[in-house]
């Protein structure tokens, strides 16, 4: 201090102002807030006893200046406000009123002026002098210099003192320059911060999006590998890593051939295909590939190569993507869908289908499927073989039209029944073959329904009965011969009677050559006895003759009478009384008379065997009202009952009587086939046969046969 006082005043002032300027510069440098800069500067000014300073900044319209900071002591401000009744802090200087300020901010000049003069321009005279007086401005002068920010004048720095030398101007300018620098620095900082913040924000957004994309990629249930033009993996997803049991670090950045096994690369020609896609920009539907990760089972994938266009090109003009040229495709995505299960399922389905088809094709039985109207859709090998008709020949034809002419009605009726909602139907109808034969077939038809229960077709399985019929015929013939053996004794006796009469009459004729009356009698007896003998033989031959195969309309009563005639004598011999209770006008029926006669013969002979001591056999026929369960419609049927008064069948044998080879007769006396053949014959006629028996009282066999439908 002492040293300073020894210095001359201008130098001291200069040092002070330099020192002061340095302080302001130090205080404001790096301060980021504009107001804070002004405040710090003012604080430094306030430390000075000799100078006051103020900073005024232009308003937005640049027509006024407002006080941004001032180093005027508060008590002086207060005194001034009391005198002027103005709020000086908020006082704005109207540039149009002040030539001094206008010169500074409009022309960029640094101006030195008397403070009273400046005040005088702004306020009316008495008020101006009052302000100058109160504030002590009378002897002060100010240096006003423009305050710039980035070269643009934003306001004014004013410094006032009682003694301001010319050389202060440079210092004030310097000071203003320092403040400007601080402001600009603040601006730069703010800008940098803003940019940094923007960057951070965009980074945050980017990170968020990246995370979202990664999340999306990881959530895709397909394997995904993105690689660049050098076939290096750029990105992949969790699905791929898990499926291939790879780690991200030994996948990302690696070439495709390091990621996929060589065999796979060669098999799929992946590299070649990728190059093509890079060249053409066209998506490639690759096809299937198998990949087996270590420790896992082989998976089958469907893969696609999807070109990814360069972002800059892809974004603005998506419509031009297809025209993408070489540069356009930057990356490629290999998308692999795991189709193992689907393939397995498909394979299983195909296998099941093949199996099913071969089951149908290889079946020994005819398998025919039809539409609901009965038109053939499929026709298997057995059907082709049996009929001699190829699938192409029968497709679309109705099955009915392929049946034997007189049985077409039966087939048509059954198909109609199915269409009406009836369930499985069994029927025997002959098929007309390519070479004009008729093959007997047992058909079992059932409707095919969809999930809604709607009938979508008919499937029928047919069994060629030719062989069965042949065996049946053989068997029938053998049993017939067996029956003949049983009958032989009785028949011989029956023949010996007329023979005896004929022989006796012939001899009488010879002996009594002259007795005309006896001659006539003898001739008559010979005639009658010969006729009787020949009838017996005729019946016998009829019975022994092999059975014809065809069903026709049958007069059941006639068949029964014929059978009974053949066996009547047997009955007589064994003192069996025959009672016939035949209902007239039985419903007509379809059948094979020879077969039915065999059934009746078997039952009558059985009855005879059951009555060695004689008895009664009652044969009853009557119409049944209700149809049979096995019959297709509710037409009337016929019931035939054979009741004997024989020894009966023990209950334990009753269920076995229709079994083949079941017999209680001594060996050589009965085949044990009679009833089983009868059973099968009745079944062929779609009838039923039942037995009731009581030991010691007798047995009743009841046959029920369906009549032809009423409409016929």
């Amino acid at each position, binding site marked *: 201090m002492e040293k300073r006082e020894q210095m001359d005043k201008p130098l001291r002032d200069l040092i002070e102002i330099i020192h002061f300027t340095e302080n302001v510069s130090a205080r404001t440098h790096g301060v980021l807030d504009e107001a804070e800069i002004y405040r710090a500067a003012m604080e430094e000014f306030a430390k000075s006893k000799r100078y006051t300073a103020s900073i005024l900044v232009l308003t937005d319209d640049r027509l006024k200046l407002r006080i941004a900071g001032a180093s005027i002591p508060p008590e002086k401000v207060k005194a001034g406000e009391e005198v002027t009744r103005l709020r000086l802090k908020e006082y704005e200087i109207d540039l149009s009123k002040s030539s001094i300020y206008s010169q500074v901010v409009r022309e960029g000049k640094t101006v030195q002026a008397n403070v009273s003069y400046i005040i005088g321009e702004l306020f009316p005279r008495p008020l101006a002098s009052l302000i100058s007086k109160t504030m002590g401005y009378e002897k002060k002068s100010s240096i006003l210099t423009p305050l710039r920010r980035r070269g643009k004048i934003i306001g004014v720095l004013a410094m006032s003192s009682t003694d301001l030398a010319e050389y202060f101007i440079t210092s004030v300018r310097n000071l203003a320059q320092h403040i400007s620098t601080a402001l600009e620095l603040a601006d730069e900082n703010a800008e940098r911060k803003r940019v940094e913040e923007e960057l951070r924000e965009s980074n945050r957004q980017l990170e968020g999006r990246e995370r979202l994309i990664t999340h999306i990629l990881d959530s895709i249930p397909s394997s995904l590998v993105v690689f660049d033009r050098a076939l290096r993996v750029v990105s992949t997803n969790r699905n791929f890593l898990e499926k291939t049991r790879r780690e991200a670090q030994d996948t990302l950045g690696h070439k495709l051939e390091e990621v996929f096994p060589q065999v796979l690369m060669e098999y799929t020609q992946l590299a070649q295909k990728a190059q093509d896609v890079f060249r053409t920009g066209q998506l490639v539907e690759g096809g299937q590939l198998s990949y087996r990760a270590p420790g896992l089972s082989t998976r089958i994938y469907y893969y696609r190569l999807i070109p990814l266009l360069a972002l800059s090109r892809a974004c603005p003009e998506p419509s031009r993507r297809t025209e993408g040229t070489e540069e356009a495709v930057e990356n490629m995505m290999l998308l692999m869908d795991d189709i193992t299960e689907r393939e397995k399922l498909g394979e299983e389905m195909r296998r099941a289908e093949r199996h099913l088809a071969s089951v149908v094709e290889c079946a020994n039985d005819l398998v025919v499927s039809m539409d609901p109207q009965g038109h053939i859709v499929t026709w298997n090998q057995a059907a082709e073989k049996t009929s001699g008709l190829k699938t192409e020949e029968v497709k679309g034809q109705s099955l009915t039209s392929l049946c034997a002419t007189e049985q077409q009605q039966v087939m048509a009726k059954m198909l109609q029944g199915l269409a009406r909602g009836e369930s499985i139907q069994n029927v025997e109808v002959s098929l007309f073959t390519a070479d004009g034969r008729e093959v007997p077939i047992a058909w079992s038809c059932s409707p095919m329904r969809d999930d809604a229960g709607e009938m979508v077709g008919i499937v029928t399985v047919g069994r060629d009965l030719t062989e069965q019929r042949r065996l049946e015929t053989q068997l029938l013939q053998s049993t017939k011969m067996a029956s003949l053996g049983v009958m032989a004794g009785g028949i011989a006796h029956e023949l010996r009677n007329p023979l005896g009469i004929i022989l006796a009459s012939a001899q009488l004729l010879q002996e009594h050559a002259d007795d005309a009356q006896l001659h006539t*009698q003898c001739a008559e007896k010979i005639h009658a006895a010969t006729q009787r003998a020949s009838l017996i033989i005729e019946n016998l031959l009829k019975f022994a003759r092999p059975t014809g195969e065809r069903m026709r309309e049958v007069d059941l009563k006639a068949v029964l009478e014929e059978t009974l005639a053949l066996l009547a004598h047997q009955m007589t011999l064994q003192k069996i009384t025959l009672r016939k209770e035949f209902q007239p006008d039985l419903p007509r029926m379809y059948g094979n008379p020879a077969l039915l006669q065999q059934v009746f013969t078997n039952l009558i002979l059985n009855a005879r065997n059951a009555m060695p001591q004689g008895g009664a056999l009652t044969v009853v026929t009557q119409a049944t009202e209700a149809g049979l369960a096995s019959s297709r419609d509710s037409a009337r049927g016929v019931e035939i009952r054979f009741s004997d008064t024989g020894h009966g069948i023990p209950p334990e044998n009753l269920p076995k009587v229709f079994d083949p080879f079941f017999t209680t007769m001594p060996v050589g006396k009965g085949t044990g086939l009679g009833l089983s053949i009868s059973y099968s014959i009745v079944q062929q006629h779609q009838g039923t046969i039942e037995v009731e028996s009581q030991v010691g009282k007798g047995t009743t066999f009841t046959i029920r046969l369906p009549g032809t439908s009423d409409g016929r």
Partner: protein
Amino acid sequence: MEGESPRILVVDDEPDMCWALENILRPAGYAMTATTSGAEALKLLDGEPYDVAFVDAKLPDLDGLELAALIRQRSPHTAIVLISGYFYQEDRSITEGLEKGLFIGFISKPFDLEEVRLMAHKAVERAR
């Protein structure tokens, strides 16, 4: 043969067979009666004595062998001849019946007239 003609009864369910036997034997001097049922035959035997009975082995109401046994019981002096189209000479029933004397002869159908006449003659001899 003195006195009245020997009486012969024919039992056969076949009327024409009865007719034949009657026409064979009546000219030979026998008194012929015929019936087609066993019961009727027994009734006739109860009424009058018969020297010979020609019995058919199978009758609708009675077995011929049974009828023979009944006749033997009721009319022991009637000689019985079994006649049949069912049995043969070698059949057990026939050989046994002959051995036991149930019937004195057997004729199988068809037969020779001479055979019938011889058998009738033999039977009448036996009966008297």
